[in-house]
């Protein structure tokens, strides 16, 4: 007798109601064997590890708008970030979701602008993303621990636990979080969809993950990979020999809203000389 999965589940369901569940399950195949380890508990030997991941961004190395677009597109395609558009092709602000994007200097560092500063800096676009704070307000307020800190400093979230209360969005000082106001799958281009990364459901909050899923396979974040040479660095800031540490130690870098005590892990080089 042959049966498909649906039929099997039907019969198994009915039999378990009648009390035959155990015998059917054991007769068909072994579901679990003592001593068998699920593969995900084994750390990948190629995985990148750090005490504290951090990022350095030097906007002077981005020469064209195209350079920036490459970075944001790399991230958004890797993570299946939906691209909601109005009929005229502009971004649909109503449903917009973004993990990494550009803002002018004055918006990135509110209050730091002055009337006489160089037009060059004033007009310079800055790449913004989640700061993976040391002391993140989003994690503090989440009522279900759906957003949480990893030991390596990354602020992660569990899309399956999130109840969509959006308290984290009110709490984030960096506007880094986006909510799925409707099913995001309808705004993902099937041609560019990354089958290796999950899509999300409506009603949950999402943001940059510092490419946790790539680090596990020994790859640096997609944005850093797509950035022009010397524009973005990613590494262990606790390691004195890492590039990020060397830049932060040797040059003037600024972080967004450090006065709030959040401890952002994204550093911006202002001025732009050669590094490391």
């Amino acid at each position, binding site marked *: 007798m042959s049966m498909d999965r649906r039929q099997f589940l039907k019969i198994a369901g009915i039999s378990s109601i009648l009390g035959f569940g155990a015998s059917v399950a054991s007769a068909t195949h072994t579901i679990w064997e003592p001593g068998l380890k699920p593969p995900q508990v084994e750390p990948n030997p190629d995985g990148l590890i750090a005490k504290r991941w951090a990022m350095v961004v030097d906007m002077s190395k981005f020469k064209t708008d195209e350079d920036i677009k490459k970075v944001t597109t790399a991230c958004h395609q890797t993570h299946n970030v939906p691209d909601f558009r109005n009929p005229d092709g502009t971004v649909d*602000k*109503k*449903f*917009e*979701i*973004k993990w990494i994007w550009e*803002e002018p200097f*004055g*918006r*990135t560092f*509110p*209050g730091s602008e002055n009337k006489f500063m160089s037009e060059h800096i004033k007009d310079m676009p800055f790449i913004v993303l989640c700061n993976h704070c040391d002391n993140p*307000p989003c994690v*503090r*307020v*989440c*009522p*279900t*621990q*759906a957003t949480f800190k990893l030991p390596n400093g990354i602020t992660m979230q569990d899309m399956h*636990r*999130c*109840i*969509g*209360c*959006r*308290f984290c*969005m*009110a*709490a*984030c*000082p*960096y*506007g880094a979080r*986006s*909510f*799925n*106001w*409707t*099913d995001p799958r309808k705004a993902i281009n099937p041609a560019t969809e990354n089958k290796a990364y999950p899509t999300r*459901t*409506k*009603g*949950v*909050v999402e943001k940059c993950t510092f490419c946790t899923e790539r680090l596990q396979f020994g790859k640096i974040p997609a944005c850093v990979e797509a950035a022009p040479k010397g524009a973005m660095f990613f590494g262990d800031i606790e390691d004195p020999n890492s590039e990020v540490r060397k830049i932060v130690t040797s040059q003037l870098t600024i972080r967004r*809203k450090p006065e*709030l*005590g*959040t401890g952002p892990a994204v550093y911006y080089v202002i001025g732009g000389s050669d590094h490391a």
Partner: protein
Amino acid sequence: MLEKAFEGGKKYWAWLFFLGALSAVGVYYYIQQFQFGLGLTGMNRDVSWGLYIGQFTFLVGVAASAVMLVIPYYLHDFKKFGKIVILGEFLAISAVTMCILFIFVDMGQPMRIMNVILHPTPNSVMFWDSVVLSGYLAINALVGWVTLSADRKGVPPPKWIKFFIYLSIPWAVSIHTVTAFLYSGLPARHFWLSAVMAARFLASAFAAGPALLIILALIVRKISKFDPGKEAIQAIGKIVAYAMFANVFLLGLEFFTAFYSGIPGHAASFLYLYVGLEGHTELVPLMWTSTILAIVALLLLVFPAARKKEGLLAFACLSLFISLWIDKGFGLIIGGFVPNPFEEVHPYWPTMPEALITLGVWAIGFLVLSMLYKIAISVRERTAGIEIEH
């Protein structure tokens, strides 16, 4: 006692049917929202809470205000409140019911609501808010029911209920303090990051809640033989006046700090709400309506001659209630999100489905309120003239 809610004349049933129809409209649009997602509302990436959370915040205040009757009656033995205190407790029950519904309709994944209990998180203020709100609902249901049952039998209520009555006093303060902490503990929102937030919440609650109660008491007297008492209503009028002055004073403190300090971030939301910011003046007419209504209400409440005329008192209370509903149920929430963390102005306005879902929740709240009041009225009409010590 519950059967009393289902015994009524034609007018009572017509009223329930009307509220039921409004609730049905709300449920219909909620199903739409459930299927499409919260994108059916006017909320967006920048203004990520809107009308729903505003209503929730405002109604927590209405619920907490029952304490304004409980304190004088049970702590100061102010006998005049003996008959009206049940109306306050039942109002609290219906207000908390609405609060819970507003939180529910605001959730992106409502089917996961039990995650709050499965993964209790003491560092989240929202966790504590759910604890204190459900506790407050239970306390008021218990106290209201036990005292009213005793009244019906013509006996004093059991001694043990006193414990819960006294417990309800700090508990009422806690529900609104914790609700204020949802906002006042966020580092990024200048408009909310204020130590007087909880105090302001309590002051506006103790004005808006009792104002609604006066209106309800006047309606109850008009449509039934149960008279909550002229003096009781006048006494509540005084409470409303004091609380509203305290609220306006606290708001004034916010203005002083925002504008005298000259820190742009502190002033930005106030500017957006009252004069407009970067060409966006969407909420300005609404906020000035609220301001004018508040002034009218205060003028009528502060002069005894005006306050003692029940028609004017009702008008003052209605003005005050609408004023605070705009201020707290809308402006306070939207103002916190505008400007956004990039100091950009992205306006918000509720959509029609969002407004109808909101109306539906209010209708359910009033349905609960009407049935509870019907029970209270039925008992009071039977025991008219008999005063029982609580």
